[in-house]
């Protein structure tokens, strides 16, 4: 009797080679939602490590003397901080985590185009990250900054540098696999009937980003392989003592690493474009111009790299060309920001944590963009290049921009992923401490750079001590701000209010399924969403008694 019973029990569940329950998050799962969460949690773990490294840097800089750690260790710490934050936190999370979770929903697919490649792309990250971190404990990590400029990278201890190169090559490979997968999914896996210009904006952002990844990351890989030959086999590609050219390395490096900035912020732009319309109850303003400006940023982003080299071995004409090209990126970027402001205008905005972080992003990124246009001007850059002004600028872009959006996105999609709401007061507290701490940490650094403090130093002129201490207090606040967030995310997973399938009354396809979504995303056929931003009431449907004169005036008719 028992022998006949067993097959019946098993047939109630479809046979699957994939593990179930929490174990699947530690497995080689090919479910895009599992992979997305793997990226997110793994990235956040590395964010905590990178944050601890930042804390070490700010502790060292709380006094003008190099008294907290040895100078070699300080250089290792700043190298690891940059590499971890870029390659293990922001790039994997804004691309891998949200991209994998959302893109198949948005195109109406049941998974990514290449699920196994997708899993491979994720599983390259933990070993690469552990390799990088462990190099610190084994032989000492790389000491030449995340830029690894030769000849410094050729003369610092070789093993740390080689491990750094290996780790970045693995992470670059992961990034390329992901990029190919996104391009194929967005272009080829769309549900029949869904046109490109009907896709949610995040799809366009990921398409643009993935084009950049696929075009520029191989250049970095090739460059680092040549650099490793110089270190291991004593070739002379970048070694001036053997006829090599150190400036060529800088060109090749920045050919990837400037687009890398857009690889970190374009997906963030896409995520904000998803979050704001839902909570403002308005359509995304200027869909077509948003698409055009993303593609303009992609094209321009590939021809601006030498603005990182205005004080290097570059002739006058080159400095001038890259000034103009760089400054013009402000135009498509500006279009996007004005479109978001117009999306806010006249809305019914819920002031929740997701919106607050999105608006914090707008404010921070505008400041970072303004200093960016200034830095693009050669004569301006000649003074502040490689100073704390630049440190402030790019933290306003990657932290004030991308990281704020990551938090906004977690507040927005947490109900979908877990089926439970996050605690709103704790979320606002998190926003408040993060916003104040971030601005206190990085705004004063503009002044430091203008007045003579170079970046990447363990010791500095004592006249800068007070402003540096102010900045360190801001960094401490940023560290503290993680605590309410962590508590919120962990506690709400068990005790949070039940969210329901669509707590925000959103129209994009990921909300048109259960929370959390089933394997393969929908129980029936995938919904066809041709108007992902179809919120709002038309002006002629307004209740005239409830509307104010301003509502009618600003209706755009």
């Amino acid at each position: 009797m028992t022998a006949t019973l067993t097959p019946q029990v098993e047939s109630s569940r479809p046979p699957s080679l994939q593990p179930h329950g929490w174990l699947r998050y530690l497995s080689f799962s090919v479910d895009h939602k599992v992979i997305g969460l793997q990226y997110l949690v793994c990235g956040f773990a590395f964010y905590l490590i990178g944050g601890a490294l930042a804390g070490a840097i700010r502790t060292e800089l709380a006094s003008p003397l190099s008294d907290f750690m040895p100078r070699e260790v300080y250089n290792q710490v700043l190298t690891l901080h940059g590499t971890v934050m870029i390659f293990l936190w922001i790039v994997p999370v804004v691309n891998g985590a949200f991209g994998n979770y959302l893109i198949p929903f948005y195109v109406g697919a049941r998974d990514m185009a290449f699920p196994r490649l997708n899993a491979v792309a994720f599983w390259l990250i933990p070993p690469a990250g552990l390799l990088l971190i462990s190099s610190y404990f084994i032989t000492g990590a790389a000491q030449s900054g995340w830029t690894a400029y030769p000849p410094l990278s050729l003369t610092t201890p070789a093993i740390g540098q080689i491990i750094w190169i290996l780790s970045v090559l693995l992470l670059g490979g992961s990034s390329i696999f992901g990029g190919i997968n996104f391009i194929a999914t967005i272009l080829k896996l769309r549900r029949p009937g869904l046109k490109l210009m009907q896709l949610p904006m995040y799809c366009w952002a990921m398409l643009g980003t993935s084009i950049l990844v696929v075009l520029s990351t191989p250049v970095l890989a090739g460059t680092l392989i040549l650099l490793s030959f110089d270190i291991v086999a004593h070739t002379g590609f970048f070694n001036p003592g053997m006829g090599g050219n150190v400036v060529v390395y800088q060109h090749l490096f920045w050919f990837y690493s400037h687009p890398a900035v857009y690889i970190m912020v374009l997906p963030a732009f896409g995520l904000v474009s998803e979050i704001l319309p839902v909570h403002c109850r308005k359509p995304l303003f200027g869909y077509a111009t948003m698409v055009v400006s993303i593609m303009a940023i992609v094209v321009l982003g590939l021809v601006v790299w030498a603005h990182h080299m205005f004080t290097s071995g570059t002739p006058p004409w080159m400095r001038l060309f890259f000034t103009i090209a760089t400054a013009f990126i402000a135009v498509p970027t500006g279009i996007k920001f004005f479109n978001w402001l117009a999306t806010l205008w006249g809305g019914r905005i819920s002031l929740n944590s997701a919106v607050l972080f999105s608006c914090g992003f707008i404010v921070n990124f505008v400041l970072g963009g303004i200093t960016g246009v200034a830095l693009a001007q050669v004569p301006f850059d000649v003074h502040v290049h490689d100073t704390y002004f630049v440190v402030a600028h790019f933290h306003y872009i990657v932290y004030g921009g991308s990281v704020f959006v990551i938090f906004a996105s977690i507040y927005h999609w947490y109900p979908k992923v877990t089926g439970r709401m996050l605690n709103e007061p704790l979320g606002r507290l998190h926003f408040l401490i993060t916003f104040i701490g971030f601005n206190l940490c990085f705004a004063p650094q503009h002044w430091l750079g203008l007045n003579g403090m170079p970046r990447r130093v363990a010791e500095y002129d004592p006249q800068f001590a007070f402003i540096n201490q102010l900045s360190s207090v801001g960094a401490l606040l940023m560290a503290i701000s993680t605590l309410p967030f962590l508590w919120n995310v962990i506690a709400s997973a068990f005790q949070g209010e039940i969210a329901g399938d669509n707590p925000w009354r959103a129209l994009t396809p990921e909300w048109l399924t259960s929370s959390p979504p089933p394997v393969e995303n929908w129980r029936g056929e995938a919904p066809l969403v041709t108007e992902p931003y179809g919120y709002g009431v038309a002006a002629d449907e307004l209740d005239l008694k409830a509307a104010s004169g301003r509502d009618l005036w600003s209706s755009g008719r």
Partner: protein
Amino acid sequence: MPIPPSIITLVLGMVLVLGGLWIGQNVNLLPVDASANAPIYDELFRVLFSIGAILFLGILGLVIFSLIRFRRREGQLADGLAIEGNLPLEVLWTAVPAIVVLFIGLFSYDIYERMGGMAPLGHDAMTQTSASASSSVQRVWGGIGTPALSTTTEAALAPPLPVEVTAMQFAFLFRYPQGDFISGELHVPVGQPVTLAMEAKDVIHAFWVPEFRLKQDVIPGQPTVLNFTPTRAGRYPIVCAELCGPYHGGMRSTVVVEDQQAFDAWFAQNDKLSATST
């Protein structure tokens, strides 16, 4: 009678622009200026700061206003207005930034030319350094050439003082070819143009004097030049601005700008070419 919204917008816009211009003219974030190109740089800084302040305060104000004015109030369930675009508005905010960016680009080109940034690099520097230069003409890979002669009349009269800068872990050395001696500090007379011919021994360094608003990488194997005219006597820090190893933060020196007499006295004290005759 209520004031029409268009008038309020216009007034706010004017206040914002005037406020931004005032901020740009009156907020001073830069150290003292001590070279001929520093006041030119500060002019660019004020323009950028004004434009930036107008833009930032305007957008900050719009965000805060929208969040307060358009927040969802108790009992409101309806959506906002279904505005999907507005062509004249979108053309406006594409055209205006494009014009502003173009203006900034042309303005900073003008500034850079006045600083000497567009002057040819190799020719000037090599003919003026010393007689030995004629034997081997080196390519100069980057830097800032001689400023246009119109900037100061003194600059047109006095020939530039050549100094050869060698950067190494973790010091700068300054060789005066006219006196064939090496100094750890850079001494220059007020008002005379200086031409630094720079090359590194080991890794990339950068020569930066914040009070001169000038920086140039010092690269192994690729000579660079930096031309400037000091205008204010004093002692200013020379800072290495390119990560060069563990003691990068300690790699500093001093530039001493002094009047011609003091400089001549210092030069005579160190001069080896004329000292050998005594």
